[in-house]
């Protein structure tokens, strides 16, 4: 569909239309010192005028009157928090005089609409779709939530120093997978629909505010917005007073990493790594979980709970009588090589989208791009993988 102009006050109509159509609307808002996703009823709560400075282990917001509504980039939350929640009861059983009775409530996912999804997170959504729904085993709850998701994407026109989506081919333009995409230009937004659901929402907005189609020249210039940013990112031009933006050389990265499994850098990064799991929890593609039974004191009520797990914890690799990855070095190596190399064998793409969350939210600022660069700088040919 031809993009149309949505005036700034039209954002409220977008929210209203989504709510009227039965969606729970979630959007970016400033809270607790960051831009996070929260329920959104009022467009004035969107983070207009806020910019995020991000670096290894550091995130700070500052107000800039020149900044638009979506000139912040990604915060600690992602779609993962909604589609693959941190904790979920998947079954419940009760002991009765007649034996065990299943009491699992019927699962009815909500109709969720999320505003502000960037290219990197759309790519992450596609990756999690492959993980949870791509093979023979389908995660029914993820699928039920996913089918009801409505995505309002945003084309980035600014990158933080931790962003490297351009290296991973995941942005800054919002790729496929959205229902509606917005591009902010001056005091209005070019808005376009990519699905029938998206077109229906635009049609409903048209009844409340007039949407003027873009001229062909305007279309070309709007398309150029993320393209201009991509060129800036590729040239690694820093924002004033900010660190140089990241990039990650992905050339033969699978071979590079698998050939360097005994590289001294793994031990060096382990001196800094806390094994705290933050990187995996903020990663929009990390999908590990553990399943366990929780009982009440009498043991008459049992629920089976799934919760996020991380390859950085010792218990994740604990097997009968032994631990497969007892050292931090082995666990960090597992995470990085799976994310950037093993993932390609397993799912056909990298597991990294260049969102930079693992860099920002690492309490000691360990930088995935720096670790790969260090190995690339002095590759050693490596003997076959040995345990520990």
């Amino acid at each position: 569909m031809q993009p149309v102009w949505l005036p700034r006050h039209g954002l409220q109509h977008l929210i209203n239309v989504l709510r009227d159509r039965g969606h729970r609307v979630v959007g970016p808002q400033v809270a607790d010192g960051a831009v996070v996703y929260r329920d959104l009823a009022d467009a004035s709560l969107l983070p207009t005028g806020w910019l995020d400075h991000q670096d290894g282990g550091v995130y700070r917001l500052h107000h800039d009157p020149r900044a638009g509504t979506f000139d912040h980039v990604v915060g600690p939350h992602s779609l993962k928090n909604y589609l693959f929640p941190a904790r979920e009861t998947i079954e419940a059983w009760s002991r009765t005089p007649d034996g065990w009775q299943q009491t699992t409530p019927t699962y009815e996912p909500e109709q969720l609409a999320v505003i502000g999804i960037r290219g990197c997170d759309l790519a992450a959504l596609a990756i999690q779709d492959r993980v949870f729904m791509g093979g023979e085993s389908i995660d029914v709850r993820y699928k039920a939530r996913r089918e009801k998701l409505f995505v309002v994407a945003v084309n980035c026109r600014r990158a933080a120093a931790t962003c490297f989506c351009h290296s991973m081919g995941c942005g800054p333009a919002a790729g496929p997978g959205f229902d509606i995409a917005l591009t902010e230009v001056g005091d209005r937004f070019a808005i376009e629909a990519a699905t029938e659901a998206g077109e229906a929402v635009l049609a409903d907005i048209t009844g409340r505010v007039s949407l003027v189609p873009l001229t062909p020249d305007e279309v070309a210039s709007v398309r150029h917005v993320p393209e201009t940013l991509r060129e800036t990112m590729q040239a690694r031009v820093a924002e004033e007073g900010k660190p140089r933006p990241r990039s990650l050389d992905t050339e033969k990265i699978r071979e590079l990493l698998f050939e360097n499994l005994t590289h001294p850098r793994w031990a060096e990064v382990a001196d800094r790594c806390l094994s705290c799991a933050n990187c995996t929890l903020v990663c929009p593609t990390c999908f590990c979980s553990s399943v366990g039974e929780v009982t009440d004191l009498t043991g008459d009520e049992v629920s089976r709970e799934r919760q996020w797990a991380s390859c950085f914890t010792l218990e994740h690799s604990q097997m009968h009588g032994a631990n497969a990855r007892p050292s931090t070095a082995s666990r960090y190596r597992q995470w990085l090589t799976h994310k950037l190399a093993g993932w390609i064998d397993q799912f056909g793409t990298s597991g990294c989208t260049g969102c930079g969350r693992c860099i920002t939210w690492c309490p000691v600022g360990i930088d995935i791009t720096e670790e790969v660069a260090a190995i690339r700088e002095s590759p050693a040919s490596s003997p076959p993988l040995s345990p520990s």
Partner: protein
Amino acid sequence: MRPRLAVYKFASCDGCQLQVIDVLGRARPHLGELAELLDIEHFLEARSRIGAGPYDVGLVEGSVSTPHDIERIKEIRQQCRFLVTIGACATAGGIQALRNWGQIDDFLSAVYATPAYIDTLATSDPVAAHVKVDFELRGCPIDPGQLASVISAFCVGRKPRLPGYSVCVECKERGTVCVAVAKGIPCLGPVTQAGCGGICPAHDRECFGCYGPDRQEPNLVSLTGFYERHGANRDSLGRLVQSFNAWAPEFRTEHDRLSGDAP
């Protein structure tokens, strides 16, 4: 026959015993009916009747801080088939273990008019320093849900299910924005064992390490080094690791390294 329970207090604030009462008193109905699973035979904080030992399970609150405590904990050990220490005092010496860095005679003469009447140890010790402990339940105070899990696991003969990860996992689970990254507040969450549910960061405060050092090689040197490079004061970092679990080996070592007292 139902298991017979005993609860004991040593040097402590009684907060962990209140958590036991919280569980027993069904203040949290979802925990079920602990009092119907066990016979409470010895619990002076909750009832005056005392049933004779031996007991199947003993819960011990508080640190060992006097010669008399040493004798008493040895007797208790003999009376209890399964001995569980509860809380930071019993598992790590508690906040009162700060005295372990000072001179006991200095404290005695500063506090008491007639120090000669005081019979005390020079240190505040975890229970495990004096007798064999079967299970340590950490926290300041302990979490009622974890206590219920330990007791029900004991009653049915299985392993308790307790978190084996850092407080960061709990913060991320509840969606809390990291106070260290977003506000520059030095926080012990990444090196502290989970258990509280990430309470303090959800209220804009740092983690104080109430559940003790994370069980998997907590990398304190890296964490405090990062905070120091980002402007934190070395003395304040030393005080941060020197609180309720100050005498836990990993926190103690880091405090001494930061203050230059390291051997």
